[in-house]
């Protein structure tokens, strides 16, 4: 149960500034995901909250109290590290109990708490084993056990799933979500994986080069990205970004990409013939049954470049009017390269960006 606030937090390593004035308010019990490409400063922010890195300027508050000068152990935070950082010479039980022992809790109290944590994480059969005798997923759970046993005010996760294989990662992601629903503890989670961000977060904080790009719920970020970077980063496959121009005629606006001209449903502000970047999410492109809900003038003929069937969905790279795009289509679309196919665009969901500043225009 804690609120965490970052006020104009800056981090410098020597003379290089890596985090430039981050402002962030995290509510009680909120699940916040810091996401961004490597080197964006997300881990540094997390480590400053943990107290493992000093704060060059600004302030971090937990429950209204400044913790700038508070030692990591007195901040009442628990952290799960990317490589788990389990103590290799201790059994699972001793690993989980270590922080309680350091806090000089009584033997019986420690035993109760460790057993409770082990039960939540289904670790009871492994309590006497050493970390080396555990699988990756079990080690991951021990690391979480070490964090939850202290009942901290804030959980900090530093890319906890990145060392697991894809299947286990999906499973652990679900378990993390369930754990958060059960424990109701403020959680700050760092990842470079936008799927983890989308599925886990109450709110996502997108960072790039030490600047916050956007803070918002997963859907907000998906539907209304503030700039080209966010539009490309959130969503997989990434948004198609295409240079285009807007044309106004008789009170109607159309967008021209190469030789392709499409009507614009909710035109952004701007003059006639303005140059823009159009963002087309792969999932707004439809074919087959999906075409029924779209007007005829939202449909085009496209030439297939390559198609990939992913079970229930298909990825299609195609060319229309001289521009190449990727579509994520429902169902199995098996098309040969060079074949012509009718595709429709849900034009109400087009995104527009200023080609110079790359900011979104609404």
């Amino acid at each position, binding site marked *: 149960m804690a609120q965490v606030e970052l006020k104009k937090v800056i981090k410098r390593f020597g003379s290089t500034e890596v985090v430039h004035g981050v402002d962030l308010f995290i509510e009680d019990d909120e699940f916040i995901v810091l996401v961004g490409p490597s080197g964006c400063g997300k881990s540094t922010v997390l480590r400053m909250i*943990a*107290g*493992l890195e000093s704060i060059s300027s600004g302030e971090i508050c937990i429950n209204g109290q400044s913790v700038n000068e508070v*030692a*990591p*152990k007195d901040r009442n*935070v*628990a*952290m799960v*590290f*990317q*490589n788990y*950082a389990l*103590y*290799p*010479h201790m059994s699972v039980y001793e690993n989980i109990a*270590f*922080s309680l022992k*350091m*806090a000089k809790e009584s033997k019986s109290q420690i035993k109760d708490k460790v057993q409770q944590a082990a039960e939540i994480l289904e670790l009871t059969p492994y309590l006497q084993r050493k970390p080396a005798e555990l699988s990756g997923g079990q080690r991951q759970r021990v690391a979480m056990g*070490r964090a939850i046993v202290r009942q901290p005010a804030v959980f900090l996760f530093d890319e906890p799933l990145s060392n697991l294989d894809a299947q286990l990662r999906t499973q652990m992601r679900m378990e993390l979500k369930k754990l958060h629903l059960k424990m109701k503890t403020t959680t700050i989670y760092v990842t470079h994986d936008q799927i983890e961000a989308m599925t886990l977060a109450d709110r996502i904080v997108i960072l790039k080069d030490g600047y916050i790009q956007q803070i918002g719920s997963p859907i907000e970020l998906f539907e209304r990205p503030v700039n080209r970077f966010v539009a490309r980063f959130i969503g997989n496959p990434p948004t198609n970004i295409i240079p285009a121009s807007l044309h106004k005629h008789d009170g109607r606006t159309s967008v021209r990409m190469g030789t392709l001209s499409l009507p614009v449903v909710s035109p952004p502000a701007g003059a006639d013939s303005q140059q823009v970047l159009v963002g087309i999410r792969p999932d707004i492109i439809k074919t087959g049954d999906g075409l029924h809900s779209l007007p005829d003038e939202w449909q085009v003929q496209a030439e297939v470049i390559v198609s990939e069937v992913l079970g229930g969905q298909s990825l299609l790279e195609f060319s229309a009017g001289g521009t190449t795009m990727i579509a994520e289509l429902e169902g199995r679309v098996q098309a040969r390269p060079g074949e012509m196919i009718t595709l429709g665009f849900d034009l109400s969901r087009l995104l527009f960006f200023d080609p110079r500043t790359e900011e979104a225009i609404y």
Partner: protein
Amino acid sequence: MRLRLSFTTVALYGVLALLALGYLLPAYLTIITALKLPADISLPQSWQLPPTLNYASFTDAFTLLRPNIVNSVILTVSATLLSTVLGSLNGYVFSKWKFPGSELIFTLFLFGMFIPYQVILIPLFQTLRAMNLYGGLPGLILAHVVYGLPITTLIFRNFYAQIPDALMESASLDGAGFFRTYTRIIFPLSIPGFVVTSLWQFTQIWNEFLWGICLTRHTSYPITVGLAQLAGGQAVSWNLPMAGSILAALPVLLIYIVLGRYFIRGLLAGSVKE
């Protein structure tokens, strides 16, 4: 082709056997001489096996060398223990608690390894005298502890560099400070490091002669000095110093036989990532 290969192999093994023989000759000579009666020892017969076995040389040598052995055990055990523990703490600080200038201090530390110890003999003698430590075992122990620190520090620092920093950070979040992190986490993980370092120090200190003779008085002489005196008198009966040198070599030899595999493993630790 096959013939040539086997010829090379035979030649190679022949050369190796010769070298091994040359290497073992002094040991052979030492053992047979130690087992001879004084009357049977003469230059023309020095390579012959003893006509009658005389085990008394060992008991006699042991009686003569007993005070020196006691001195050496006290000296070696305490100096090894101290220099290893201090080296471990130093290595812990230099690898995990770096502070501004710690790299420079560490580099200066390493210079100590390259100073031949004969060079510092006279200043060391004067220093110990000024500290009122000249002549006894405590002074010699101090000298060996200080002189051993660079190598023990280096071994432990490199050993600890392999322990991930996340372990330290995790411990600090768990509420362990400088000493508790050392005793609960770093120390239990560094047992192999302790074996390697103390083996090294034990061998160095047990076998050391020059400081032993220069920095102590008669009653505090270690075994190496005692052995030299056994051979130093007139009309030496050579079976005694030979038996004495076997006794003197025995502890180091035994330690290597028992712990040698840890030594190799420790030297190689970190060369391959697990």
